[in-house]
């Protein structure tokens, strides 16, 4: 069984939309902008539907399965209508703004957190659905852009922590900054080791580089996904990603039993929803990066290439499942231990990984 090779130069989503709306040929700038906007709208909504609607319900069910419970089962079939109830509940709550909050920063923080993650999805090759390629843009600096966009969230967390006028929020914000600095570097160094193989930061290039068969065992071809090529880097990346999205064992910025809810202690109603959404989006963005960089992007067996978006969704949900598993079963490390693991463990290992990869790539290729 072999994998269908991806189209060499797929048509991006805005272009598809533009062709459908305005036909081929040269487009005016407003036509391009409208098409891009519509494309972003579609992709954004797909992600929001996954994170905002399916996410919370799935999270309930998954966590319940891990902890020997049943979870929601009364509201609608399998408790599905809880999504509606949740939405009404969260949006219907009063928005309480603490006295002494630093207003513009306080209001902007949730927006920054949520939008930074959405921004990251712009360059993720999500595969095709009925032949339509769900990719908004494919710049040459794709991978760097994703990390840059995702790290903006830290700014949001710092703003929230500082602007809430609450000591717990402040501690949460400070912890978030310390954690993100400590784990961003190993994350990017590990990703850089993949770039050494691919020779490009372009996301489509990274995906394309993983389509060659690696070896064949008992008739099954293992593709050269970087998770198979360099499992050590994969593990490092997954761990660093856990810290990036703030899930156990690295959920110290929130640490409900220690600092209540960290930076989001003082947020309620719509602002809280934005934070909540932002967190989910970040987990999914983390999943998307892992899928793209290490798991061959949207590629997968059985399905035709025109439907490989399904594989992409399965991969990011697998990562989501993993974070929930970690959350249910792994204790939280202490803040000093977290920093220690980050600087003394992860950084050293990711550097070693980078150097080793560089040597191997230099000698062999």
């Amino acid at each position: 069984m072999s994998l269908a090779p991806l189209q060499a130069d797929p048509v991006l989503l805005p272009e598809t939309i533009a062709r459908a709306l305005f036909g081929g040929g040269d487009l005016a700038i407003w036509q391009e902008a409208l098409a891009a906007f519509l494309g972003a709208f579609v992709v954004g909504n797909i992600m929001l539907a996954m994170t905002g609607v399916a996410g919370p319900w799935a999270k309930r069910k998954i966590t319940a399965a891990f902890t020997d419970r049943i979870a929601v089962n009364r509201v609608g079939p399998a408790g599905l209508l809880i999504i509606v109830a949740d939405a009404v509940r969260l949006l219907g709550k009063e928005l309480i703004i603490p006295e002494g909050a630093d207003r513009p920063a306080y209001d902007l923080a949730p927006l920054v957190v949520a939008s930074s993650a959405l921004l990251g999805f712009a360059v993720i090759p999500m595969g095709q659905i009925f032949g339509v390629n769900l990719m908004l843009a494919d710049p040459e600096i794709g991978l760097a852009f994703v990390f840059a966009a995702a790290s903006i969230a830290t700014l949001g967390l710092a703003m929230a922590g500082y602007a809430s006028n609450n000591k717990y929020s402040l501690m949460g914000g400070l912890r978030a900054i310390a954690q993100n600095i400590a784990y961003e570097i190993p994350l990017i160094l590990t990703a850089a080791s993949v770039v050494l193989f691919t020779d490009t930061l372009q996301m489509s290039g990274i995906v394309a580089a993983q389509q060659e068969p690696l070896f064949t065992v008992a008739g099954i071809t293992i593709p050269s996904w970087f998770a198979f090529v360099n499992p050590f880097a994969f593990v490092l990346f997954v761990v660093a990603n856990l810290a990036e999205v703030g899930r156990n064992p690295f959920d110290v910025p929130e640490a409900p039993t220690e600092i209540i809810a960290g930076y989001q202690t003082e947020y309620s109603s719509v602002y809280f929803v934005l934070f909540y959404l932002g967190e989910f989006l970040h987990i999914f963005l983390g999943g998307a990066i892992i899928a793209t960089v290490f798991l061959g992007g949207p590629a997968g067996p059985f399905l035709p290439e025109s439907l490989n978006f399904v594989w992409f969704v399965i991969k990011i949900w697998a990562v989501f499942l993993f974070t929930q598993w970690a959350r249910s079963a792994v204790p939280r490390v202490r803040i000093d231990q977290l920093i220690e693991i980050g600087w003394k463990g992860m950084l050293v290992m990711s550097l070693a990984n980078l150097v080793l990869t560089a040597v191997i790539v230099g000698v062999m290729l």
Partner: protein
Amino acid sequence: MFLNIGPHHPATHGVLHLKTVLDGEQVADVEPDIGYLHRCEEQMCQNNNYRHQIMPYPDRWDYTANLPNEWAYARVAEDLNDIEVPEYAQILRTMSVEFARIMGHMLAVGTFALDVYGDFTATFMYAIRDRELVQNILEDLTGQRMMFNYFRLGGVVWDLPEPREEFFEKVRDFIDDLPEALEEYHDLITTNEIFQKRTIGTGVIDAETAKQYGCTGPVARASGIDYDLRRDDPYGYYDELDWDVVTEDGCDNFARLLVRMREVEESAKLISQCVDLLEDWPEDERDIQSNVPRTLKPDADTEVYRAVEGAKGELGIYVRSDGTDKPARFKIRSPCFNNLHSLEAMAQGEYVPDLIAALGSLDVILGEVDR
């Protein structure tokens, strides 16, 4: 930085207020501010008669492991009024109290895991599941799931539920499954390296300091103090049964957790021996209560202080009589009160997460601290 941890905080196990002074993330000083759950329990006991009216109140002190509290009152009142308890009732008491101890320890393990893991953890749900099994058994025995009110002066209120075989089978099933369940906890918690990193060597209190703070129960035993009233000041049927006092030398959060988990095993040992005894007890000698006068009026100015080993430690009651059927002074010595006091010694210089973990490992029940 001064930080109020509580009274509304996810990890204060009820309503406790810790006035904390932080140096960075480290605790420079911590002072518990208690009293949010004060319900005048001592006063209420002083307003009620010995014979029937006081017994429901002890259930409200340590409400996670209620039955030992009932025994604390039963012991002091029976000593005061010179009441004998039939041997059969002593076995029933011993068995039910050990079940309650398992209940308390399960909740302690579960909430401790919450404190260290964060919410949504498997351990907490597992612990609650096992606690529910015990509650089912105690519901069969007493008719209640929480406020058991099972003890009476001179015995207990009911014999085992009929058919007895069914009850014994249920108990034995539970006891047989327990080692496997405990193994699960060890797999989930104690063998986890991150967990060990978090708990070993944190919240340390050495034996001498623990004695200074009057620590008792699992907290003292985890500091290597071999002290257990069930053995050292025998009551009930404990001195007839084969069991061990569990001690650990770690003095830290981990040791306190281990002591609780091992004590669950000891309690199971005690229960299975009690069940064997109860099963073979001749039918015509099943006295569940001795003859106790309708009204109890101990001599005026008799003073007595008696303690039992509750799930959290030494639970003592002082009673002074004034010749009426109500106590003139009723004073409760709560183990949680003393154990909570020792938090300041454990948390000094530790990180906030370890302060929370130490608090969890003390297993304080605010209902008992504040009374």
